[in-house]
């Protein structure tokens, strides 16, 4: 029967596709950066500093989105920057998700002392101020890609653990769990085969949100100069540099900022879209 649900689903489909296309392009850019980037992202040329993008008077052919104050090509730097952004998003997002969701699932379904242990641990963990914590961490173990990922995992696993725990607890009270016990399924089996598929849509949404957050965190750390070595182009680093010359060369700030914005938005929309599309229960 045709009804209102179809329309909602179609709209969700458009969101899903737009975000998937943007993220797909980004992945391609990251993989193919050495071949498709028009210039070397690190090559400086002070004579070509602060060139405007192609539609503004005074531009140079070959520098589509202009150059920064050191004469480096903005487009090439954005393409290379996608590499770090995506690695951080995928690795940090996935590790955070697996760790947090596993602990949350155990606490929420097994209950008892497991829950007490994990929940108290979460409470204590969340009492640390996260930004201070990550800056401290990087100050101790030194900047670098690994440190950023570690910082994100250490701070954000509680987000997964708490939400998944609550969800697993609600699902655990459902009769299908009792029904599985009557059928003779053990506790681990129930957790993985009965509960997990029902909390999976929530986990997917959280995961994509987390990927977006990871990109932002990386940008923030770059902004305060705590990320990768300053030579490697990162979006956050570009935004930080662009800020200094925003009145003379707005494009140095704007283009990485727009890219960052679209990427984070795409991650969250991807999660919602996937949930709408692949949740068989959603009415």
């Amino acid at each position, binding site marked *: 029967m045709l009804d209102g649900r179809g329309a909602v689903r179609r709209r969700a489909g458009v969101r899903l596709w737009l975000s998937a296309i943007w993220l797909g392009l980004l992945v391609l850019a990251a993989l193919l950066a050495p071949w498709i980037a028009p210039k070397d992202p690190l090559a400086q040329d002070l004579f070509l500093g602060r060139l405007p993008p192609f539609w503004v008077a005074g531009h140079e052919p070959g520098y589509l989105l202009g150059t920064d104050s050191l004469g480096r090509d903005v487009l090439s730097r954005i393409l290379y920057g996608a590499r770090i952004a995506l690695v951080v998003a995928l690795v940090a997002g996935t590790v955070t998700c697996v760790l947090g969701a596993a602990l949350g699932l155990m606490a929420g379904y097994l209950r008892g002392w497991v829950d007490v242990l994990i929940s108290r641990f979460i409470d204590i963990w969340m009492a640390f101020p996260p930004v201070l914590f990550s800056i401290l961490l990087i100050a101790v173990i030194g900047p670098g890609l690994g440190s950023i990922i570690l910082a994100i995992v250490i701070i954000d696993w509680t987000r997964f653990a708490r939400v998944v725990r609550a969800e697993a607890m609600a699902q655990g009270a459902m*009769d*299908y769990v009792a*029904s599985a016990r009557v*059928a003779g399924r053990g506790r681990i089996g129930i957790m993985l085969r009965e509960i997990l598929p029902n909390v999976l849509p929530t986990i997917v949404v959280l995961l994509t949100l987390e990927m977006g957050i990871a990109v932002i965190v990386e940008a923030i750390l770059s902004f305060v100069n705590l990320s990768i070595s300053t030579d490697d182009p990162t979006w956050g680093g570009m935004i930080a540099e662009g800020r200094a010359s925003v009145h003379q060369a707005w494009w140095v700030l704007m283009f990485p900022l727009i890219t960052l914005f679209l990427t984070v938005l795409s991650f969250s929309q991807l999660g919602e879209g996937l949930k709408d599309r692949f949740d068989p229960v959603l009415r």
Partner: protein
Amino acid sequence: MADLYEVAGLQLSLADMTRKPLLGAAPRLEILKGLNFTIPKGSVLGIVGGSGSGKSTVGRALVRLLEPSAGSVRFDGVDITHLDEAGLRPLRRRFQMIFQDPMSSLNPRHRVGTLIAEPLRLHGLDGIPTRVARALDHVGLPAGFTARYPHELSGGQRQRVGIARAIALEPDFILADEIVSGLDVSSQAQVLNLLEQLVRDLGLTLAFISHDLSVIRRLCARVMVLHQGVIVEDRVTADLFASPQAAYTRELLDAIPLPDPDQVWA
């Protein structure tokens, strides 16, 4: 006739978290206050009572979803009162349960075929596809239903899947907990007829929990009336309807609205 279940002095209490003091243990809430009854093999027992009577709790103690706090539950001679999950595993196949709300008792993410086959696989049975097909046939659903998800079915169809899932294991005992209370009258009649026929054909022992005495009258040879965790009456159905002994039973019977405008309510 031998007894499949022998229940003696069954007590069950749960921690009352709403009244838990800041420090120290929560007070215990007595749900079942020492029940004695038996369920003979091949019989159909009705368990009736209002909300808070403990009828669902008794049922869940019988299939050991809950562990009694005192007394004993013997299933076919085996004491299952305090058996752990591992000890229960081999017995689980022999006592099955059908739930009140098929929407929540069937995992929404599994197809009907998987839902019925899973318990068979867990118990290491062979010829699973044949058994699934036979179970679906028993409950009058077409074989094509194996590919559907629970939310694609009507309430009556979902409840049939719940029944198929339970009988596929060829159990000795089935507990049916309020399984028709969420259904329309027509589906309710269909499911009851089906259950009646399955009990006859498969030689099942059935405990049928309901708040509705008129449904019980149709299906059960014997009725046990529970009120606030105590058995107030346990008799042959026809006798109970002819001359209810306990005041609570009379009150219960009296309150049923007959589809008859001439019935006068005192």
